[in-house]
């Protein structure tokens, strides 16, 4: 049994909470009796989630694991649990509430955030430190959730013909890490690729709306963009972010036009006191 298959199995096991979509007990029995994993199990997973989604998650897991290879998690379990609670709540306001969402803070002091297909989202410690309240965090995570639900990165992979969802590229070997790795190119390079400008503007609009739906103050994400716009272009902490995203000023302007006066009467919570403060 390849380690990656084992990982995928473990990964499914961990998601008991999201398991209502299929008969989890039955799957568990299968796991017990049919290890090592055989194609039947893969089929069971696919049946439960649909082939495209299972593949999307397998791709995302590989990318996320590579990203963590470059920058591991901040070793603070309370922090990680906290961002997952906020993230899950925001994501559950989206049209893909049943994805197995994962959120994390990674050790990099860069100011950046990353989304991988299937619901893997990471914020750098550098960005986390800029946050002033929970609504800010909700807005940032909402932006990344936007990339996932609109499949922005997956579409890049598809466009480059690396992935052919529905076209069987992966279907024989979901979770086969070498094969998945082959599909996503080198390491976690995909997360450093620039998306179309419009994809970023779209994710900004989604981030604001998801945070609002979740009951937060709508102006968290715009506030963070304002903070980031404050950085000088030549500051190494934002080099990659500025390279791969439109300038925060442009994003603010576009977002401002889109928001217009729609949020004037919308009150929300900032939850400044509840924001988990990261250890120095």
């Amino acid at each position: 049994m390849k380690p990656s298959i084992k990982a995928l199995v473990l990964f499914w096991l961990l998601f008991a909470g999201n398991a209502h979509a299929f008969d989890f007990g039955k799957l568990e029995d299968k796991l017990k009796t049919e290890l090592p994993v055989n194609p039947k199990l893969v089929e069971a997973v696919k049946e439960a989630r649909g082939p495209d989604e299972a593949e999307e998650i397998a791709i995302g897991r590989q990318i996320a694991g590579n990203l963590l290879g470059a920058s591991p998690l901040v070793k603070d379990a309370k922090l990680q649990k906290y961002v997952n609670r906020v993230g899950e709540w925001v994501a559950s306001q989206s049209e893909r509430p049943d994805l197995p969402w994962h959120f994390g803070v990674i050790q990099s002091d860069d100011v950046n955030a990353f989304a991988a297909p299937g619901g893997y989202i990471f914020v750098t410690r550098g960005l986390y430190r800029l946050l002033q309240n929970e609504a800010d965090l909700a807005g940032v995570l909402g932006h990344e959730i936007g990339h996932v639900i609109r499949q922005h990165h997956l579409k890049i992979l598809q466009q480059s013909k690396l992935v052919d969802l529905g076209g069987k590229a992966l279907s024989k070997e979901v979770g086969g890490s070498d094969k998945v790795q082959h599909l996503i190119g080198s390491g976690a390079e995909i997360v450093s690729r620039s998306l179309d400008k419009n994809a970023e503007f779209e994710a900004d609009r989604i981030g604001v709306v998801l945070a609002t739906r979740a009951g937060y103050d709508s102006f968290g994400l715009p506030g963070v963009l304002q903070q980031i716009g404050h950085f000088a272009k030549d500051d190494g902490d934002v080099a990659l972010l500025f390279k791969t995203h439109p300038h925060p000023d442009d994003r603010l302007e576009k977002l401002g036009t889109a928001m217009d006066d729609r949020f004037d009467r919308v009150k929300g919570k900032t939850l400044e006191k509840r924001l988990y403060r990261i250890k120095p």
Partner: protein
Amino acid sequence: MGMRTRMREWCGAAMLCLLVCAPAAMAAESGTMLKADELKAEPFRDAKTVKTLAKGDKVDILSKQGGWFKVKAGKSGGWVRMLSVRKGTAAKAGSGASGLLDMASGRSGTGKVVATTGIRGLNEEELRTAQFNEKEIALAESYAVNKADAKKFAAQGKLAARPFDYLPEPK
């Protein structure tokens, strides 16, 4: 002993003042108008217009309320839409970023920015050559929460879910 106690009190008072006074002193953060917009007497669209600010006008940001900044613009004061303002002055100073941002990010006065130039940062090369880390991804997955947990957490913060349509792409 009395001397020492007094000294301690004085230090305490000074510390307290630093903690309490510093944010007030820093609250006047400078901003620049991203676009022309009206300065309002109150943070509402229908409020009386004090005057119109032009693109590039400088403002001092005093506080924030929802989507509005309370600002001072020349001799006038009032409220302006947060999204019409960029923080900082138009000419971006390389290392001169200061104020709330630095406080918030813990960058103030640490010299970290200079000290670590060139060695920090997730650059494309690092990402390209990154190796899959099974242990870390499994750890990340171990922190997942389910919807019921998230719902409870939201309720604790008095967050109420509400419908809100996605925003159309501006023309």
